[in-house]
């Protein structure tokens, strides 16, 4: 982040070109997963189904946004030597809020995610943004930066989830109210492979359920993204 804090007086909640860029940059040019390489662990672990990835994405957006906001508010009071502990306490309390809220709202998905909700604390993307942006910028900008990075993270999570769920389970949004069954051998599927000659060849691909598949998919996503966005290509 070459951007430095703006010196002159400005309104508290401005939303101009720079602010929009803070939100849109992480979606492509500065994506937390494919460019900054932060927050891979949970991307691998929760994305075997779309619905948990979606809930995870929302939880991460909440935590990145508000932890950036609070850290930025406190940034001039935090001594440099203990900054990590202060940041982690902020993150850990926000994660506790998310965990308890999710437990109240949707218990099955909470049980499915429980470990990984806890591991948002150690999701590098939250801490990485605090160190790289929120410690040097004003609260409103830091909040937008946090939200933007959460969105960029969530986008990748959901893309990987969609690919893995369709090929690994033949369904979409399994476990959610709008569950869709795309292809597969069960009778109530969208395309029943036992009737449809076109999809008769399809059997669930078990490789897609393994975490290794997420690595391949993210690798291929990076390949696609860098083919279009050639300024990201690693020259070294």
């Amino acid at each position, binding site marked *: 982040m070459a951007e430095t804090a703006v010196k002159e007086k400005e309104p508290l909640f401005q939303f101009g070109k720079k602010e929009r860029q803070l939100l849109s940059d992480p979606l492509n040019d500065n994506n937390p997963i*494919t460019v900054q*390489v*932060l*927050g*891979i*662990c949970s991307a*691998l*672990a929760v994305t075997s189904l779309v619905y948990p990835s979606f809930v995870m994405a929302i939880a991460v957006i909440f935590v990145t946004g508000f932890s950036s906001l609070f850290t930025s508010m406190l940034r001039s009071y935090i001594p440099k*030597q*203990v900054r*990590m*502990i202060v940041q*982690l*306490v902020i993150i*850990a*309390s926000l*994660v*506790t809020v998310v965990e308890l809220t999710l437990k109240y709202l949707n218990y099955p998905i909470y049980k499915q995610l429980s*470990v990984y909700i*806890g*591991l948002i*604390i*150690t*999701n*590098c993307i*939250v*801490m*990485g943004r605090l*160190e*790289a942006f929120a410690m040097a910028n004003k609260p409103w900008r830091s909040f937008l930066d946090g939200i933007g990075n959460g969105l960029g993270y969530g986008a990748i999570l959901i893309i990987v989830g969609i690919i893995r769920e369709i090929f690994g389970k033949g369904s979409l949004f399994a476990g959610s109210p709008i569950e869709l069954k795309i292809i597969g051998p069960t009778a109530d599927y969208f395309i029943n492979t036992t009737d449809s000659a076109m999809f008769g060849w399809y059997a669930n691909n078990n490789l897609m359920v*393994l*975490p*290794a*598949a*997420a*690595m*391949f998919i*993210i*690798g*291929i996503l*990076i*390949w*696609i*993204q*860098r*083919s279009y966005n*050639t300024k990201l*290509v*690693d020259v*070294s």
Partner: protein
Amino acid sequence: MEFLNTFIKAAFIENLVLAYFLGMCSYLAVSKSVNTAFGLGLAVIFVLGITMPINWVISEYLLSESGLFGVDLTFLRFILFIAVIASMVQLVEMVVEKFSPALYAALGIFLPLITVNCAILGGSLFMVSREYTFSNSIAFGLGGGFGWFLAIIAIAAIREKIRYSNVPPALRGLGMAFILTGLMGIAFMSLMGIDPASYASN
């Protein structure tokens, strides 16, 4: 003997990176050269080896119902574990800055990010859920750290070699590292299910 078993299991069979995919962030970002990977790997072994027994003592004597306060305080586990880890990492950061400024500059933001290395917190949580004894928790910490060290050295060495291969430009670097890790993960899956204890008894 049990110490050795836990160590081997944590290092090879249940490798934190390749079997559980924990600690990927720094694993991918700092594996460009073997030298920096070596430094970071040593730092991770040190932090895991120290935090694991400390967290064991905390969860056994402070947080459990039979502990010092006589109240079930397990909901504080995350915050206390992460506080221990953060202070240990800060300690390592100071030591590295003092004795090896070159390594300190090379590791950059990833030294403070050891704190948020999922392998460290994940290791402590595994240690609690598997109900290890004190000596086992030391073995698990050192073994897990050693496994992480091996994995990052392996990928760094592969990435140093692959720099001279004809990889498509868009896949160069990060993209290739992801695919390589996926392949290494599949390879390491063949070690799952081996039980060192059964060999020891024979």
